[in-house]
């Protein structure tokens, strides 16, 4: 069972942000790297962790070559702790846990290794940890996303990206509910949830409605667990005002139809120089500090830094569900 909650002390001392989302190519690594570089430029200690187990390349965005030790060395016990895998970068205050080159072996992490990784993540000697997650909705990716506080979903203004983001959020919701069902030993509800959730957009409501009628106490527990999941949203590669507003709309639809308290952090404008920086193996954020995209990243970082307040805030309408 993955512990989804952080103790009060851990929460105040350490910020663990995870950047994820369903679709590839939305700019998850770009956002993660830029957030890390921004925090480091404010003289903060930051560790970027490339937790994309299938296709790691965060180091390339920072202009750093792949080398050992990396995440694979930690997961295969070649090094005793994750702290040793966090190596220095050319940027002051910023360290990186590079993704493993041995992806065939690492991509399918077993439960024990996953728990060890999550535990050591909280023990890293730094105040800020940023996880760059991979594409898709594997249990590992979902658990990494859910253990962060908060998780950030990166989406682009394209139907494919939005569709996959909703799928990713649905998977997160099902994972949260399943973990609580396992914890409270109500596993028979899981199959019922899977059947119900496939029906239509209001299926989650239908699931809770029928659960409230059959067992109000479990319904209350699961509904509260769901309301405790509060991801953030970033609209990347926004080309105009409509794209910026689209992000707000997506967060609103997720709040209404997926019953989650989602916060819209804002949009990162599309910038051709991102591609040029990537080709030159130079971090965009440092090369174009005055660009609109870099300004947006700074603003998001501030929003996220105050996300503890957001996490502690009771989400609106958290009163107990009606039977």
């Amino acid at each position, binding site marked *: 069972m993955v*512990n*989804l*909650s952080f*103790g*009060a002390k851990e929460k105040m001392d350490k910020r663990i942000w995870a950047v994820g989302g369903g679709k590839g190519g939305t700019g998850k690594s770009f956002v993660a790297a830029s957030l890390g570089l921004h925090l480091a430029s404010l003289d903060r200690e930051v560790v970027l962790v490339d937790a994309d187990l299938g296709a790691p390349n965060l180091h390339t965005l920072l202009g750093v070559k792949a080398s050992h030790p990396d995440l694979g060395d930690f997961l295969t016990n070649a090094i005793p702790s994750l702290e040793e895998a966090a190596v220095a970068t050319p940027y002051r205050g910023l360290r990186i846990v590079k993704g493993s080159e041995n992806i065939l072996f690492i991509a399918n992490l077993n439960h024990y290794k996953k728990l060890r990784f999550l535990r050591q993540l909280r023990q890293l000697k730094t105040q800020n940890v940023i996880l760059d997650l991979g594409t898709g909705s594997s249990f590992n990716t979902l658990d990494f996303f859910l253990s962060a506080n908060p998780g950030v979903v990166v989406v682009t*203004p*394209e*139907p494919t990206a*939005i*569709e996959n983001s*909703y*799928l990713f959020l649905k998977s997160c919701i099902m994972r949260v509910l399943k*973990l*609580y069902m396992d*914890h409270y030993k109500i596993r028979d509800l899981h199959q019922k949830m899977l059947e119900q959730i496939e029906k*239509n*957009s*209001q299926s989650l*409501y239908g699931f*809770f*409605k029928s659960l*409230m009628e059959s067992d109000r106490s479990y319904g209350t*527990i699961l*509904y*509260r*667990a769901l309301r*405790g999941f509060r991801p953030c949203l970033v609209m990347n590669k926004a080309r105009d005002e*409509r794209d910026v*507003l*689209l992000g*707000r*709309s*997506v967060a*609103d*639809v997720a*709040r*209404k*139809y*997926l*019953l989650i308290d989602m916060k819209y952090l804002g949009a990162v404008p599309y910038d051709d120089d991102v591609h040029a920086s990537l080709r030159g193996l130079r971090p965009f954020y440092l090369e174009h500090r005055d660009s609109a995209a870099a300004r947006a990243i700074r603003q998001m970082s501030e929003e996220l830094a105050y996300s503890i*307040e957001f996490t*502690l*805030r*009771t989400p*609106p*309408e*958290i*009163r*107990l*569900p*009606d039977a």
Partner: protein
Amino acid sequence: MLKKIEDWNYYELLSIERTASQDEVWEAYQAALATYRDGSLAVYGLVTEAERGLILERIQEAFQTLRDPQKRKDYDLALLRHSPYVPPKAPFRKSVGKVEIEAIPPKKTLWARVRRIFSRRNSEA
């Protein structure tokens, strides 16, 4: 509160507080129109056409009511009778998986006070 979309009141539908000004109502209406308009990407893959049409109708209905001060007053009164307004709560934490007791001061019961007096006397002695 867990409600079916058809059961949301106009304020929940437009995601605004019941104390929202006319300008805020207008802005929320425009945002809701953009979210649920025909061909909107925001509902792609999650909301069916029929549901989108239904919610759009309700958004129009909500705006027509809330833009008119008299209609809004009548609606608010009806709403208050049905469900009293509870302003947003102060920050506090609820946890389910792991019960967290965060800096909760011990209760000052009579027995605790008596015990404190005795322990103080013992330490003085």
